[in-house]
């Protein structure tokens, strides 16, 4: 079978993949120290503890952290993480024995219910290894009635060959992982593996492994960014995923081949996810290659292993050539989402921006989601958030195809990434301002109702025209309506009830004010004082009304005009 849909736009940069596919995936000796970023997890070990490989080091609302090898926990420290940030990390000193933690054993697959299986997947730390890094179990749990499983072996970004080599070497294990995923999803009707046609060896290996199964291996034309999740789904199924929804909600799940492989290791062997394949490449590496890397390995260690020449290197990039980000501190460690690190020479780096946008529109021709980057660029520069929203900034997948063709060398994708964050902040600000405004308007309405009520206090025939949701005003409105409609006796009864109700509220508020602890901050105290004052006014008004009504009852009714 071939592609059902087509990729809009896209580019075809030179892939430079053959540099790192000449030899098999290498396993390096363990580095002297592993740095394991905690993220939102809380440590479960203390400094000095000796842990086995796969032992749980930290757990929390997100993904757990496991020991990639056996060794001694040295402590926690703030360390570089990712391309440009820092975070609290556990330092683990490998003991060189790489001995498994005694509790690691294969789960009894047939005894587990689907939800227990998902829990096992989550506690093994399985996450999207294609770059998302999101918990695979949660991704599956977010959908239901899956009809299609798509396995992403596209690897469309230049230089990166980690998935390519994994498919060549571990095709059987990947197919076994896919079969497990099929079980997790409740037997979807179709399972498709998409592989770009520049990986014939991987395609052949996967086809061989998938023989006698229902799994279809589909070779797709090499075109960046056809490996984007939504792009691949559309290519393979022809189904566009509704905006603002995840594919899971349409019954389609997309998993990366490396994720499926990790799934197999976790469910068949009980091994938590603690290592992955990383491509190290670029013109400044004399020996570009793929390595099996335990998480926590610093990039400096990997670069040294691939004969990196610092003098020739003009820029280190974390990730691929299109979407990668400049690596600020090469001591940062490999994590789940690290698929590639590049040491690029000056001629391999994108050109510096030479001039402003000339609006040539080449970017909008290659944009896979039909955006108008030339417009977004201008709107982002001038921070026109409403217009950015109307130009669908949120749909940008940050693929960088626009950067690639921009004749002015403008780093558009980075600008859009920043603009998306700024837009989100602007939205939050707008929502907060909206809430404040609603509150302020309610206050204004209360004050207006008050003034109105006072002004009409002596006009016996008037009724409040500013009903507000507040109880006091509602009382007044009720009083007025009662007066207009009911005979004098029931009116008086209603007014008496209002007087009782208002005095009751006044007492309660006064009590609360008295009982406020001494430590109460002044603004809060003032707010309560204001409410007491308000209740007092309500009460006085109710009393005045009652007095009027009594006079009225005593005197003969006035003729109405």
């Amino acid at each position, binding site marked *: 079978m071939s592609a059902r849909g087509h990729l809009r736009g896209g580019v075809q*940069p*030179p892939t430079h993949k053959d540099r790192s596919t000449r030899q098999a995936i290498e396993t390096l000796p363990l580095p002297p120290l592993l740095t394991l970023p905690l993220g939102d997890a809380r440590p479960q070990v203390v400094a000095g503890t000796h842990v086995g490989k796969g032992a749980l080091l930290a757990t929390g609302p997100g993904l757990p952290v496991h020991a990639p090898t056996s060794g001694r926990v040295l402590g926690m420290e703030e360390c570089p993480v990712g391309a440009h940030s820092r975070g609290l990390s556990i330092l683990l000193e490998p003991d060189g024995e790489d001995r498994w933690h005694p509790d690691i054993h294969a789960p009894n697959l047939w005894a587990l219910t689907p939800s227990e299986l998902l829990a096992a997947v989550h506690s093994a730390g399985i996450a999207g290894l294609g770059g998302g890094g999101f918990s695979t179990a949660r991704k599956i749990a977010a959908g239901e009635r899956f009809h299609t499983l798509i396995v992403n072996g596209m690897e469309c970004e230049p230089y990166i060959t980690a998935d390519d080599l994994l498919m060549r070497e571990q095709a059987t294990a990947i197919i076994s992982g896919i079969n497990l995923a099929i079980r997790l999803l409740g037997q979807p009707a179709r399972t498709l593996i998409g592989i770009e046609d520049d990986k014939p060896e991987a395609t052949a290996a996967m086809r061989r492994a998938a023989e006698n199964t229902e799994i279809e291996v589909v070779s797709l034309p090499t075109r960046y960014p056809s490996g984007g999740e939504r792009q691949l789904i559309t290519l393979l199924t022809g189904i566009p995923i509704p905006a*603002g929804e995840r594919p899971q909600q349409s019954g389609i799940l997309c998993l990366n081949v490396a994720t499926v492989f990790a799934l197999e290791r976790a469910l068949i062997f009980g091994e938590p996810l603690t290592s992955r394949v990383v491509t190290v490449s670029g013109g400044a590496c004399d020996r570009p290659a793929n390595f099996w890397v335990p998480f926590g390995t610093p990039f400096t260690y990997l670069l040294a292993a691939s004969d990196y020449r610092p003098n020739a290197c003009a820029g280190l990039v974390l990730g691929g050539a299109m979407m990668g980000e400049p690596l600020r501190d090469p001591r940062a460690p490999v994590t789940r989402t690290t698929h590639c690190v590049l040491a690029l020479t000056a001629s391999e780096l994108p*050109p510096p921006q030479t001039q*402003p946008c*000339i609006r040539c529109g080449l970017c909008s021709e290659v944009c896979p989601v039909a955006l108008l980057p030339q417009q977004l660029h201008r709107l982002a520069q001038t921070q026109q958030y409403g217009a950015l929203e109307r130009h669908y900034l949120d*749909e940008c997948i940050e693929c960088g195809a626009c950067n690639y063709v921009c*004749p*002015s060398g403008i780093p558009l994708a980075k600008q859009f990434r920043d603009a998306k964050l700024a837009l989100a902040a602007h939205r939050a600000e707008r929502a907060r301002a909206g809430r404040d405004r609603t509150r302020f308007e309610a206050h204004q309405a209360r004050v207006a109702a008050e003034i109105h009520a006072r002004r009409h206090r002596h006009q016996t025939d008037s009724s409040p025209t500013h009903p507000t949701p507040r109880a006091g005003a509602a009382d007044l409105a009720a009083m007025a309506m009662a007066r207009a409609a009911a005979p004098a006796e029931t009116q008086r009864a209603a007014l008496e009830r209002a007087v009782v109700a208002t005095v009751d509220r006044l007492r309660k508020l006064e009590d609360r004010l008295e009982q406020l602890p001494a430590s109460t901050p002044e603004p809060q105290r003032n707010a309560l004082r204001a409410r007491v004052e308000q209740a007092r006014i309500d009460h006085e008004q109710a009393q005045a009304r009652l007095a009027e009504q009594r006079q009225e009852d005593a005197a003969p009714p006035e003729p109405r005009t």
Partner: protein
Amino acid sequence: MTRTATHSGVRAEAVMHQVALATLPGIVALTWYFGAGTLIQILLATGAAMVTEALIARLHGHSPRTLLADGSALVTGVLLGIALPPIAPWWLAISGGIFAMAVAKHPFGGLGNNLFNPAMAAYAMLLVSFPASMAHWPAPLPLLPESASWLGLLSASNAIFLPAAADIDAVTLATPLEVFRGNSGLLVEQLYNTHPLFTAGDLAAVGWETVSLGFLFGGLYLLIRGLISWHAPVAMLVTLALLALLFGDGGSSASQGPPGLHLLSGATMLGAFFIITDPASLAASRMGKLVCGALTGFLVFAVRAWGGYPDGLAFAVLLTNLCVPLIDRYTIPQPPGHRRRQWLGGGDQ
């Protein structure tokens, strides 16, 4: 600059140089049929535009080299020089080149920010300010009177630099659009059979048709190289041809001219491929480009048929340019997965 994994290697100045290069077939045809004056006009307009841009760069505190390097002043100058009558006096091209940069381009923010196409803004300014000088087109080479020969560099220079002394009336001839404009009694067929412009021409008017084909050829080159998109030119040419058909009036004396005439004379092809495709003043989306092209086609025809000028490209382009922000607003393409098309989505700008 070569193609790498991080950049296509296509730079803005290369785009501009390709555009300038693509005007060559049209320029050759112009020079062949209307004399070497075109080359002088191009030199004058380009020189004025580039010097003005360099001065503005200095005013901004930039090095003139950085501003000139993008080649856009060159393209503007070339297009203006092409559009001017080959024997127009020298100060037209000079003031046009200055106007294009100092009024139409840089006050709006320079390259990419100009609302109007600078060459057309300058042309329109010259047309309304100096209508007489702008109307003198020489006769195409085959129709020159026996006493005159091809306007070489020398005779063209005479006409351009010494307009008072030169007897340019001897070599001028009405343009085909002017012929149709002045027609009051002849059927289209009679006109085609009697007027020398058309009897000597194969498709429309002699000379003009070749020049138009030259620009069409250059435009196709730009299309194939992916430097312009087909949307605006095709929309403009189709609209213009359809309107000409609609108001052709069966070839009667009230006809506004057959589609062939409208497509292959005046500045139609130059406009369709080199003027309205100027990305700075064109709508951003494909749909927007179609709308812009169709609007320009309609306006060109409207000016030719019912307006005060024989050719209306400059005015049509400027009016379309004015509408671009509005067109852009309502032609934002929808990313895949969006179901509703919000044609009239409100805004907060």
